[in-house]
C-alpha cells in the first residue's frame, strides 16, 4: 500500500458531485455574507482610520499568540485550544486541497504524509478538547437568561459534531483499509480504528459507515462555512482583521484621532448610525461578546446603565438593521443605545486594555458624545462646566486670577525667563479646591528646596481642555488648545511640569495632534529624578503603610506605573511600605472622576469612588497615595463618607511630611 494521501477514499462519484455542488453553494454563501456585510459597513459616512503599522507584531503576538485573550484564565486558554485546533485543521484541509487540485500527486506521500497525518490528528484532538471543555463550561456556568446562550450552545455542538464525525470517518477508513501501520501516525483515528477492528465489523459495513460519517462531516462542515457570516463564527474573519487594522494595543489609548475642519462640517460626531466610520462599524462585528470589558468597567460594575459591550453591539445592530442609534428624553428617538449609558463612562480605558480583538468602546463612546454635545444635548451641570470653559477658561467658572493668586507666597514671577528650567503647569483644580492646592504647594515646595528654577504661566494658562474633550466638546477643546499653544510657544525649550495626569495626557499626546510638541513631564517622574540626584532630603523619618492607587490617565493611558511607586519606596529618610490593590497597574480600578464625571455624575448604583475605597480598606493601609488631583478628591470624599481614619495623600505630599 502506498504511504500517501488517498483522496475521496471509497466515496462514490455521485457523492463527490453532490459535495462539489454543496461546496460551491457554501462558498457562495460565505462570500455573499461577507460582501453584504461589507456593503452595510460602507454605508457609514465617517472617515476611517486604518492603522497599518506593526502588522507582523499584531499577527504573531495578538492573533496567533493570543496575548490579550490569554489574560483571562481559563477561558483564554480554552479559546487558544479551539483556535489552534481550528487553524490547524484549516491548514490541514488547505494542504489537502492543494494536493488534490493543484499538485495532484507527490506532496502528501511518505514522510510528508506521515507528518501530515500526525499533525492533522493532533490539531483535531486539540480542537475537540477546546470545544468540549467550552461547551461543558457554557452548560454548567452559563446564565440561563443570557440571550446569547442558545446560539453558543448550537455553534459549539456543531463544531464538536464536525470534530467527532471527522475522527470517526477517519477511523472507519483506517479500519476499512485494514489498519495499515503507517496510519498509526493518525493517532486518534488509529486508536478508534483499533476499537472498531476489535468489534469485527464487516468491510461492507465499514465502507457504508464511512460514507455516512463522511457525508455527515461534509454536511456540517460545509454548513458551518456557509453560515459563518450570519452567526458568531463571523468573528473568525472580522476579529483578526480588526486586530490587524487597529492600533497596536500599547498605543491604543494614546492614538485618539483628531477631528479636522470642524467649521466646514454642519454636523459632527456619531448621532445617526451612518455617521460612524466603516472601521467602527466593523468593530461592532469584531466584538465577540466575551464581556471582558464589562468585568473591568467601573461604571458597569457599580450598577450604571453603561456596558461597553452593549455600546458596540448597539452600533452593530443600528448599522445592520437600520435602527436609530440613540434613545433618551432629550433626543426624542428610541434607538439602541441609551444616552444615559453614554454619559456614564469615566474614560478609564479598561475596556480598551482588556479587549482581545482590539476594539475600542471608548472611542465609540467619544464619538457618540461628540454627536450629542455638538448638538447641545448635554446634561445641565455639564453644560455649566462647558460654558465656564467658554467664558473664563475653566470648568468651575472661577475668576482666572484664582488659579494662581494662592501661590503668590512662592514669589515665582520674580525670576527672569532665561533662567527658568521648568514651567509649572497649574491645572484648573488649584483654583477650585484647596485639597488640590495642597498638591501643587507640596510640589512647589519640593522644587524650591531642590533649587529648581521654575515659574507658572499665571493668567496665560487656560484649561488644558481635558474636560471639554472627554465630554465630547471637540471644537471647544481645539480652541482652548490653540490658546494654550500660543502662550506656550515661547517656552518650547523648557520642561513643562504638571501634577495632573489629565493635563499630562492632553499636553503630551493630544496637543501633538494639533502640531504642538511639548516636553511635558509628570511630577512623579520629575520628583524621582530629583531623588535620584539626591536633591531631595528630609529629616524626620515617617513609617507608614502606603497603598498606591494608579490613576487611569497616568497608568493605563500613559503606561507610567513605576515612577510613582519608586517615589514612595525611595522617599528619603522615610520607611514607607508599599501596598498594592488587587486590581492595580494596568488593571487598576478607576476613582470615578474622569471622563467629565465630576459634572456628569450618574445617579444609579453605587458610587465608583466608594467601591474603590472599600478595596483599599481591605488592605488596611495607613495612607492611600495617589498621583492625580481627581483621585485624591474622590478617595478623600469616600474616606470621610466611610468615616475612616485613613489619610489620603498625593505622592508629592508624602515627601513634605516632616
Amino acid at each position, binding site marked *: 500500500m502506498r504511504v500517501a494521501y488517498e483522496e475521496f477514499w471509497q466515496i462514490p462519484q455521485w457523492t463527490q458531485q453532490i459535495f462539489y455542488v454543496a461546496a460551491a453553494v457554501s462558498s457562495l454563501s460565505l462570500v455573499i455574507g461577507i460582501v453584504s456585510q461589507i456593503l452595510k459597513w460602507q454605508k457609514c459616512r465617517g472617515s476611517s482610520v486604518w492603522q497599518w503599522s506593526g502588522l507582523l507584531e499584531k499577527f504573531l503576538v495578538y492573533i496567533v499568540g493570543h496575548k490579550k485573550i490569554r489574560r483571562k484564565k481559563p477561558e483564554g486558554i480554552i479559546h487558544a485550544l479551539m483556535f489552534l485546533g481550528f487553524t490547524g485543521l484549516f491548514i490541514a484541509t488547505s494542504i489537502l486541497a492543494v494536493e488534490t487540485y493543484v499538485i495532484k500527486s507527490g506532496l502528501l506521500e511518505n514522510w510528508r504524509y506521515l507528518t501530515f497525518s500526525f499533525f492533522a490528528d493532533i490539531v483535531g484532538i486539540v480542537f475537540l478538547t477546546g470545544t468540549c471543555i467550552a461547551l461543558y463550561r457554557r452548560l454548567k456556568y452559563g446564565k440561563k437568561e443570557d440571550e446569547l446562550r442558545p446560539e453558543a450552545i448550537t455553534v459549539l455542538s456543531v463544531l464538536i459534531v464536525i470534530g467527532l464525525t471527522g475522527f470517526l470517518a477517519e477511523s472507519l477508513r483506517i479500519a476499512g483499509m485494514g489498519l495499515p501501520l503507517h496510519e498509526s501516525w493518525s493517532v486518534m483515528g488509529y486508536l478508534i480504528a483499533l476499537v472498531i477492528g476489535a468489534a469485527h465489523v464487516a468491510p461492507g459495513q465499514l465502507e457504508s459507515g464511512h460514507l455516512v460519517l463522511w457525508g455527515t462531516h461534509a454536511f456540517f462542515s460545509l454548513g458551518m462555512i456557509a453560515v459563518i457570516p450570519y452567526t458568531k463564527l463571523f468573528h473568525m474573519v472580522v476579529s483578526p482583521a480588526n486586530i490587524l487594522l487597529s492600533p497596536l494595543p500599547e498605543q491604543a489609548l494614546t492614538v485618539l484621532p483628531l477631528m479636522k475642519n470642524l467649521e466646514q462640517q454642519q454636523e459632527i460626531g456619531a448621532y445617526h448610525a451612518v455617521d460612524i466610520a466603516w472601521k467602527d462599524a466593523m468593530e461592532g462585528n469584531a466584538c465577540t461578546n466575551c464581556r471582558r470589558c464589562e468585568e473591568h468597567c467601573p461604571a458597569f460594575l457599580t450598577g450604571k446603565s453603561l456596558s461597553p459591550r452593549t455600546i458596540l453591539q448597539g452600533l452593530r445592530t443600528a448599522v445592520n438593521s437600520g435602527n436609530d442609534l440613540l434613545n433618551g428624553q432629550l433626543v426624542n428617538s428610541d434607538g439602541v443605545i441609551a444616552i444615559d449609558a453614554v454619559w456614564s463612562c469615566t474614560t478609564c480605558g479598561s475596556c480598551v486594555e482588556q479587549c482581545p480583538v482590539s476594539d475600542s468602546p471608548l472611542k465609540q463612546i467619544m464619538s457618540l458624545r461628540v454627536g450629542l454635545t455638538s448638538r447641545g444635548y448635554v446634561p445641565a451641570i455639564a453644560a455649566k462646566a462647558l460654558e465656564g470653559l467658554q467664558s473664563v477658561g475653566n470648568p468651575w467658572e472661577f475668576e482666572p486670577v484664582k488659579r494662581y493668586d494662592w501661590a503668590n507666597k512662592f514669589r515665582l514671577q520674580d525670576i527672569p525667563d532665561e533662567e527658568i528650567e521648568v514651567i509649572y503647569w497649574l491645572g484648573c483644580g488649584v483654583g*477650585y479646591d*484647596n485639597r488640590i492646592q495642597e498638591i501643587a504647594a507640596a510640589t512647589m515646595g519640593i522644587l524650591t528646596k531642590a533649587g529648581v528654577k521654575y515659574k507658572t504661566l499665571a493668567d496665560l494658562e487656560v484649561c488644558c481642555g481635558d474636560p471639554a474633550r472627554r465630554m465630547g466638546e471637540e471644537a471647544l477643546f481645539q480652541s482652548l488648545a490653540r490658546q494654550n499653544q500660543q502662550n506656550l510657544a515661547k517656552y518650547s525649550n523648557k520642561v513643562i511640569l504638571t501634577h495632573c495626569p489629565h493635563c499630562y495626557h492632553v499636553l503630551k499626546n493630544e496637543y501633538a495632534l494639533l502640531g504642538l510638541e511639548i516636553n511635558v513631564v509628570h511630577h512623579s517622574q520629575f520628583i524621582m529624578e530629583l531623588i535620584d540626584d539626591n536633591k531631595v532630603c528630609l529629616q524626620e523619618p515617617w513609617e507608614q503603610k502606603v497603598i498606591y492607587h494608579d490613576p487611569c490617565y497616568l497608568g493605563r493611558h500613559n503606561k507610567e506605573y513605576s515612577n510613582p511607586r519608586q517615589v514612595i519606596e525611595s522617599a528619603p529618610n522615610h520607611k514607607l511600605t508599599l501596598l498594592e490593590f488587587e486590581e492595580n497597574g494596568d488593571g487598576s480600578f478607576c476613582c470615578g472622576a474622569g471622563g467629565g464625571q*465630576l*459634572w456628569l*455624575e450618574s445617579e444609579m448604583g453605587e458610587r465608583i469612588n466608594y467601591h474603590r475605597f472599600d478595596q483599599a480598606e481591605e488592605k488596611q493601609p495607613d495612607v492611600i497615595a495617589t498621583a492625580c488631583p481627581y483621585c485624591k478628591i474622590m478617595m478623600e470624599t469616600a474616606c*470621610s463618607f466611610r468615616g475612616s481614619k485613613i489619610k489620603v495623600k498625593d505622592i508629592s505630599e508624602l515627601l513634605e511630611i516632616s
Partner: protein
Amino acid sequence: MGEVWVYVEALNSGDIELVSLELLEEGIKIANSLGSNMYAVVFGHKINHENIGRISQYGVERALVLDLPELAEYTTEAYCQAMVQLVQSRQPSIIMIGATPDGSDLAARVAAVLKVGMVSDCTDFKLDPQGRLKMIKPVDGGRAQATFETKGTPQIITVKENSIGLGRPTYKYMNIEHLEVKINQSKVRTRVIELLKGDPRTIDLEEAEKILSGGHGVVGSDQWEQMQQLADALGATLAGSRMAMDCGNIPRERLVGQTGKTVRPKLYIAMGISGASQHIGGMKESEKIIAVNMDPLAPIMKMADLQIQADVAELLPVLAAELELRKGNIETVKGAF
C-alpha cells in the same frame, strides 16, 4: 420742590413688603433734604387699616391711599393708570418703589408712560447738589457698581430688599388722604386667575429665602425629623449636602452643591456640614450663613457669618424649643394691639 413718594406694597396676606418699610425712613430723609414732603402711597381695595397703621411706625406723617375695586389684585395696566393719574395731578419729584416682581413691573410701565427714566434694583442712592437723585446699583454680576441719573420728572427708582435695612420704629401721627381716580377697564387687558402660595416644604431650593441644610453631622432619621420640624418653624426649606443624599436622608432635588442646586438664599444654616468645595460652590453666595459643626476648623466655618461649635444632636431640640418660646412671645405681643 415736588413730593417724594414711597410706594408701599401690601401683600395679599395683609403684611407689608419689607423693602417698602425699609424705604420709608429714607424717603423722609430725602424729602427733608429737598425741603419737601414725603408721602407713603398705598393702592388696593378694602385695605386693612391696621396695615396702614404700621406705616406710621416708621415716622411717616402723610399717606395717599387709593382704595378702588379695580385695584383689588395687582394688574399692570390698572395700577399703572392709577399711578400715572396721581402723578399727573400731584407732580412728585421722586418715586421710590421696592424691587419686587410687581414693583418692578409697575415701575417700568409707569416710567414708559410718563416718558421718564427708571433705574431698577438699586442698592443705594444719594442726592446730588442739584437735588437730583443718584441711583447706585451693582452691575456685571456684582463685579462693579454703577451710578445713574434719570432724565425727566418724576425720577423713578426701584430698590432691592435688604440693602437699606430697617431702622428703629419712630411713631408719628399720620394724616391719610383718600383719593379717587378713574380707571379705564377696557385698557386693563390682564386678569389674575389664581395665586398659589409657596410652601417652604415644597418650593424649589433656588427660590427659597431660608434654607436649613444638613450634612454628615446630622445622623439618623430622628435627627432629620427634628431638622424638618425646625425648618417648618423657621419657615425654611430643608436641604442637604452630598453626604446626606448618599445616606438617603434627602432626595436629589434638595441637594446643594456643584452637582445639585446653586442657591442664593437670604439665610443658609449649615448643620453638621464640613464644607467640601463641591458643597461650598453651591451656597457661597448666600446672604447670611450660620454654620454649626463639632470641628471649629471645618472649611465652612470661615465663610460663615455666625460660627458655632456644637453637637447638632444636642442643639436641635434646644433650638427648636427656644424658637417655640419666642414665637409664643411674639404672638402675645401682637395680640396686645
